[in-house]
Structure formats: structure tokens, C-alpha cells
């Protein structure tokens, strides 16, 4: 496989906002003293009058975003996933979710790949928290191309959207010239008949690599990219369940309440098949280089290969 360019989706976030700022004059960006890290500093530099730094006060920032949205502006409230979804959960729920306001939440530094900062900043629970809010759209893009497309789709969608971005540079595998993004639509990346790997975020490319290894070993694995975890593309999941009879989910998030849970909920209702969940296994992370942590926690192609082989052998 050819070496791909790598880029962190948080950079895609900052760059896309700066680009889209020209086209969408109603777009405003809010930060809580992390504009440098969330990469919205790029937007701030270009549109200083449309960037609002709320200081280290995420709860208030979400309320400010809600207030802006009531007047027709489109605010992107940015912070680390830990604080956007975690600390500010109840404000997101009551001031944004309940009135279904048109606020976009840009949550960077999600998951274990935050790395050296350790467990206090490694948010593996944000998808679970956000997808529990009625009417909240949850998007976890896999690479730069998808992140940019998803951001513009979110601008053109009326309602609250939680968007998850990473700190770690990840391979850009989508073709920017042909890629089309639609909220709520899964993406079939590789067909297969023995098993389906359903992945999200940085695990998508790992799943693609795993499927190639498996193919060489005689296992035909389908790969589906689920960027929109809510609303889930049930059609693509159920089709895979029916046709391959086995699902392995892969996400850089707790196995409680994330993609694996969403997929399980979907298939148990309509087409019960075995779902094996790869993710953070109900533990806290710790400090270390992101790449090492991903391996340690099984968030890598090698573990997908092993997990799939075991699951297929038990089929």
C-alpha cells in the first residue's frame, strides 16, 4: 500500500472553518482558551471579528453558542472532547439539545490518541454522552477529506451537531476530488462476505489495512466507515449483518455507548448476529506516545485481524 499523507482532523477542522468562513458569513467560532490546540486559531487569524474566546469556561461557552444560535448565527463551539462533551454535558443537553438549537460542537483531542496528557484528557466517553441526547447528530470523521466535507454538511444542516476530531495525524485515504459526504450515510469501503468490520474515526484506516491482511489469509472482510454515529445508517448495517452474519466494530472510544453499542442496538432489533466490539474496554488510559497507546489498547489493524480471525473461527 502506498504511503499516504497524514494529517490530524483537528487541523482539518481549523482549516475548513477558515475556508468556509468566506462562503458562510453567518459562521462564528467560539473557543475556551484552546484556539491554538483546536486549530481554530487559523479561523481567528482570518476572521478576528467572528472569533469569540470565552476563556476557560466551557459551560458558559455552550450557553453563549446557544444564545447566538437563537438569533440565527451558526456558532461552532470548540474545545477538547473531554470538556465539550464531558464538563459541559448538561448545558449541551438543556441549552442546546432540548431547544434543538443550531449549534455545532467541534470537539478535538478525542480518544486515547491524545497521548502524553494522560487519562484526564483522553475522552473515551463523548460519543456515548452525545448520542444519548435526543436530536443530537454525532459525526466522527475518519480523515482530513471526510472531516472537511462533514463540517460543510453540518453547516448546511439545521440542528445541533457534535463533531469529533483527533490530535494525532492519520492517513488521508479518501480522494478529495470524488468524495461525497452525506450526514447519516455509511460508506462501503470494501466488499466482503465472511465478516463486516464497522469502524469509525481513526480506526477506519486500520480496518482497511486489516481487511487486506485478512484477504491474504483467505478471509473476505467487508469494511464500512460509519462517520455519522447518530443517526446511524441502519440500512448499510443490516445489509451487512444479513449478508456476512458477523460484525466486528472498531472505535477509539469506550465499548460502552459508542459505535459498537449503536451497531449492537441496531442488529439486535432487526437482524441479530454476533457483534464483537473493539474499543477501550471500560478502563482509563494513561500517558504515553499516541501510537504506542493505540497498540496497547488494541486500537490497531493487528488487533482487528486477530479479533476477526477468532470471531470467524467461532462462527
Amino acid at each position, binding site marked *: 500500500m502506498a504511503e499516504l499523507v497524514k494529517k490530524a482532523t483537528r487541523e482539518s477542522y481549523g482549516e475548513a472553518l477558515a475556508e468556509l468562513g468566506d462562503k458562510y458569513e453567518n459562521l462564528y467560532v467560539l473557543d475556551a482558551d484552546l484556539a491554538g490546540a483546536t486549530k481554530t486559531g487559523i479561523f481567528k487569524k482570518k476572521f478576528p471579528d467572528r472569533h469569540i474566546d470565552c476563556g476557560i469556561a466551557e459551560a458558559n461557552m*455552550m450557553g453563549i453558542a446557544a444564545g447566538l444560535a437563537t438569533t440565527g448565527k451558526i456558532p461552532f463551539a470548540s474545545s477538547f472532547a473531554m470538556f465539550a462533551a464531558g464538563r459541559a454535558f448538561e448545558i449541551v443537553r438543556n441549552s442546546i439539545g432540548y431547544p434543538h438549537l443550531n449549534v455545532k460542537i467541534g470537539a478535538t483531542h478525542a480518544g486515547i490518541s491524545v497521548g502524553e496528557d494522560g487519562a484526564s484528557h483522553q475522552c473515551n466517553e463523548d460519543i456515548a454522552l452525545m448520542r444519548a441526547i435526543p436530536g443530537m447528530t454525532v459525526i466522527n470523521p475518519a480523515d482530513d477529506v471526510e472531516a472537511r466535507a462533514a463540517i460543510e454538511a453540518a453547516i448546511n444542516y439545521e440542528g445541533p451537531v457534535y463533531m469529533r476530531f483527533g490530535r494525532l495525524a492519520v492517513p488521508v485515504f479518501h480522494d478529495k476530488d470524488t468524495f461525497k459526504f452525506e450526514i447519516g450515510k455509511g460508506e462501503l469501503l470494501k466488499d466482503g462476505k465472511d465478516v463486516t468490520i464497522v469502524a469509525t474515526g481513526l480506526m477506519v484506516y486500520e480496518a482497511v489495512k486489516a481487511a487486506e491482511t485478512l484477504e491474504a489469509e483467505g478471509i473476505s472482510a467487508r469494511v464500512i466507515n460509519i462517520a455519522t454515529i447518530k443517526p446511524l445508517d441502519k440500512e448499510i448495517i443490516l445489509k451487512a449483518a444479513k449478508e456476512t452474519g458477523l460484525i466486528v466494530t472498531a472505535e477509539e472510544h469506550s465499548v460502552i455507548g459508542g459505535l459498537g453499542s449503536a451497531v449492537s442496538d441496531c442488529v439486535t432489533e432487526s437482524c441479530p448476529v454476533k457483534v464483537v466490539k473493539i474499543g477501550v474496554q471500560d478502563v482509563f488510559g494513561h500517558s504515553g506516545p499516541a501510537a504506542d497507546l493505540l497498540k496497547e489498547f488494541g486500537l490497531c489493524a493487528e488487533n482487528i485481524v486477530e479479533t476477526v480471525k477468532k470471531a470467524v473461527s467461532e462462527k
Partner: protein
Amino acid sequence: MDELLKKQLEITACKVRMGIIEGVYNAKSGHPGGSLSIADTLTYLYFAKMNVYPDNPKEKDRDRFVLSKGHTAPALYSVLAHRGFFPVEELKTLRHIGARLQGHPDMKHIPGVDMSTGSLGQGISAACGMALSAKLTSDTYHVYAILGDGEIEEGQVWEAAMFAAHNKLDNLTAIVDNNGLQIDGKISDVCSPYPIDEKFKAFGWHVITMDAHDFDSIEKAFREAEKVVNQPTVIIQTSTKGKGVSFMENQVSWHGTAPNKEQYEQAMSELSAHLKELEG
């Protein structure tokens, strides 16, 4: 204040109080105490101060109001109904299944409600966002928000207070309803937020105090607030929880309790007598 206007406002405020009692009684639950303490201020805002459009509640240039102490929704609903946003008769449906009048303000369904609130400390942030929005695009509307004195124990209020002063939101007026009581008792006993004025001053706000049940004092305070430039204003209103219903006044037990039939009749008879006196 003009005597005629004052009389009209007193009459309206009395009717608003009757609407509060009507709502809470029919709901068999709700918060009469803190609703009655803000009845005069709300009446002044909606009948003498704010630029609102009952026939077109979402009109872009309207002044905004956020009831940050959302549990006193019966007062807001009663004022909105009397101002013509929806029928006064609808107040009887408060908290009923299928009704628009939810236990706490719901902007999605109730005409005239500018922000959904209820979880304390959150409304003031949204009000700051509305005020900031006007500054960003040179809109001329003003934003008002009422907070409870117990509510300001929430940390988010002070995040918002810092933000409003930093952004020089002189188009924002917050009102702290200082009736001195919260669910667990006197605010000074539970976890005292006093001195409220000094705290807001330290956060960079212009501070005004007023008597919440005297329209001359209310008008004077709001007139002063609108002249303030480059900083937000807070009006700390000294009020009586349960104001207007003798047995509810200054009783913490009436924070979140509905009157029974006998109590309802007594309250309505007191308010009717007062209305008659005013109209007489």
C-alpha cells in the same frame, strides 16, 4: 412614574398574580413563591419597557427576555398571556399532558419564550450570547434576564458575569430576584451568595438596587440601566417571596408547593379584593 401608567401596571400585575395562582393550582404543582416575587418586574418589562410583538413573537428586532430562574415559569406564562401571546385561559393547562405550557419555559412551543430554561445558571449564558450577537452585527435590541438569588450560587453564572463584562455587553440587563429564600431555607443560611452587589461590582458590572414591588423604583432602575455604556448592568431587586398572597409571603414552604382548593380560593379572593381596590 406617570400615575395613570402606574395604576395600569398595578392592575395588570395583580391580574398576572391571579394567573400564576390559577396555573399552579390547576397544575397541582409548580413554584408560586418566586413567581409572585417577580410579577411586578415582569409586568413592567412586558407592558412598559420591552419592544415585543405578540402577533409576531419571533420578530427579529424584538427585545429578548430570558427567565434564567426557569422554575418561575408561571409568572412568565401569565405575563405573556396577558400581553396577548396566547389566551389567558390556557394558563389552566400548565404542566398538563399535551399542553404547551411545560413545567419550565420551552422556546420550541410557547409563543414569546425566547429561551428554554429551567436548569439554573444556564439562562444567563444564553442571554449573554443573545447580547453578544447584537453587538456582532450591530442589532439594536436589548436583552433582559432574571436570575434567582439562590441561582447565583451556580458557578456558571459567574462565568457568564465575567464574559459579559469582558465583552462590554451594555445591551444586557440582568435582574437578581433577591427574595432571600431558596428551597432549603434562607440563602444566607444555605450557602450565602452575599454580598451580591459587591460580587457583581468586582466582576465589572454596573450595579443598581430597586424595590421589586414599587413601580416608581422599577422604572427608575431600568431607566438608569439603559444609560449605562461599555458594561453590563445588574439590578438587584429586593422582593418578597409570595408577594400579594398573605399566607405565602416570606414562607419558604411556598417555594414549590401548589395551593389546595381552600388555599386557592383564599389567594384568589385576596387578589380579587386588591384588584377591586385598584380599579375602584
